């Protein structure tokens, strides 16, 4: 029973990790660059939600009504006003800029909210459990998290596969120069992709804040989890994110069951192991160029 419980909890934890990875996978898939402030942006969204609940009296989940559009605009603005300026110089400027941004967000949050750990209060749903069998109770909110993840993945997949804009995203990812010949403005697509990623991050941040407490310096660990999800699942693949999240969650939970100190380490080792045997991940989708 303990083994089953560990496995199920690992899968549920993986749902959260897959959410971390989803936004990063989207931007990598289209722009081929990693936002090193990804984890800090998740934490920023959590704090913005906290602010909304304090000012407007919303519950954290209600705050998404405000948060999703606001985060979309921040992401779109970041890409169009800052990151697009460096496109022609390769990946290094974007990496360094987002690395700098990571420090700006962390210390900005520290100055604005102090280093105290905080928590988003959604109410009873946080602690409710679902008892599957005697001695086997799973948290309701982690199950909901997995549900949100699945909805987001299917929605994203439908958007990419069925809409003109989604096809333009994929065309730009394949070959931005030829996409330009189809009338697709790559800079705008990049802006929209980052906006979309930030909108997903808004959802992620709120869920993270309800599930656990948080502090301004939690971002880097979130970035690493998101990155590991992508390495395990395969770069630029939406379904790979699901697999990557679940495997990372399982690895950590199993490691943690052996000894609490192995929790994160087991996840890192699983990632490095995948990197050693299958460098393009389990479900590679991105077509490698040049």
């Amino acid at each position, binding site marked *: 029973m303990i083994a089953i419980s560990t496995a199920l909890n690992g899968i549920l934890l993986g749902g959260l990790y897959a959410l971390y990875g989803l936004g990063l996978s989207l931007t990598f898939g289209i722009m081929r660059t990693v936002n090193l402030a990804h984890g800090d942006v998740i934490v920023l969204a959590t704090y913005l939600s906290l602010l909304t609940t304090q000012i407007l009296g919303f519950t954290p989940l209600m705050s998404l009504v405000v948060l999703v559009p606001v985060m979309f605009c921040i992401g779109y603005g970041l890409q169009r006003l800052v990151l697009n300026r460096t496109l022609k110089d390769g990946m290094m400027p974007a990496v360094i800029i987002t690395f700098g941004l990571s420090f700006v967000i962390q210390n900005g949050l520290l100055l604005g909210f102090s280093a105290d750990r905080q928590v988003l209060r959604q109410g009873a749903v946080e602690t409710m459990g679902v008892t599957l069998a005697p001695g086997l109770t799973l948290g309701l909110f982690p199950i909901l998290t997995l549900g949100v993840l699945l909805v987001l993945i299917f929605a994203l997949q439908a958007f990419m596969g069925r809409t003109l804009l989604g096809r333009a995203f994929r065309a730009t990812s*394949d070959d931005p*120069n030829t996409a330009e010949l189809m009338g697709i*403005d790559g800079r705008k697509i990049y802006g929209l992709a980052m906006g979309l990623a930030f909108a997903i991050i808004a959802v992620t941040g709120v869920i993270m804040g309800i599930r656990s407490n948080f502090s301004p310096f939690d971002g880097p660990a979130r970035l690493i989890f998101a990155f590991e999800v992508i390495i395990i699942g395969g770069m630029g693949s939406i379904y790979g994110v699901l697999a990557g999240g679940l495997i990372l969650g399982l690895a950590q939970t199993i490691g943690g069951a052996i000894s609490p100190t192995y929790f994160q380490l087991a996840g890192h080792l699983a990632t490095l192991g995948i990197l050693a045997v299958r460098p393009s991940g389990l479900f590679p989708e991105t077509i490698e160029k040049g």
Partner: protein
Amino acid sequence: MALLDVENISARYGLFQALRGISLTAEEGETLAIVGANGAGKTTLLRAICGALPASEGRILFDGEDIAGQPASQLVQRGIAMVPEGRRLFPSLTVEDNLIIGSYPKRKGVWTKDKVYELFPELVKRRMNRGLDLSGGEQQMVAIGRALMSNPRLILMDEISLGLAPIVVNQIYRSLPDISAAGTTVLLVEQDLNRALSVSDHVTCLLEGHVELAGVSREIDRQALIDAYFGASQ
């Protein structure tokens, strides 16, 4: 007024001057063939017209307006479509998605997905295949169809017979009259002189980045064209 009026444009890649003062015109609805040896500047010329490469000098008038310096993504909206050299299908998109992406500029006109399938019936059974699973000829058909989906007034075709078997090339060239019939102006780069002359109204021969010879396809002196092609008249 000519639909396309290229006035004395020059362009360079780094230190290499690819175009040296080229001028040409194309009337609405006509087919203009551009011939020339490798490195004569044919592809560069097309890239300059469609906005993929900025011209360093000169004017490009499209429907009477200077479009030099405008990005390719805007020129498609105005009605200039490009069939790039090497086909360049989007590898992760299906044939159908490749065609649909061609309609991104949302220009109205006769060309729709169904019309393209009518033009190239071979593609129907390939609709759900990814671009790279196709034969070279099929890929070329998708590339042409994709460009048509934007309902262009001017379509630029860069070496559409490159690397294809003669029978496939014939098949592809049979689609040209249907394209012209829709009123579309065709600017096509072709290595094969006979083919270029047989499908075009006018022909322009480039040599080392300039226009060496131009004329009406039916009337042009074939030997003079061959000399111009190889630079033998110099």
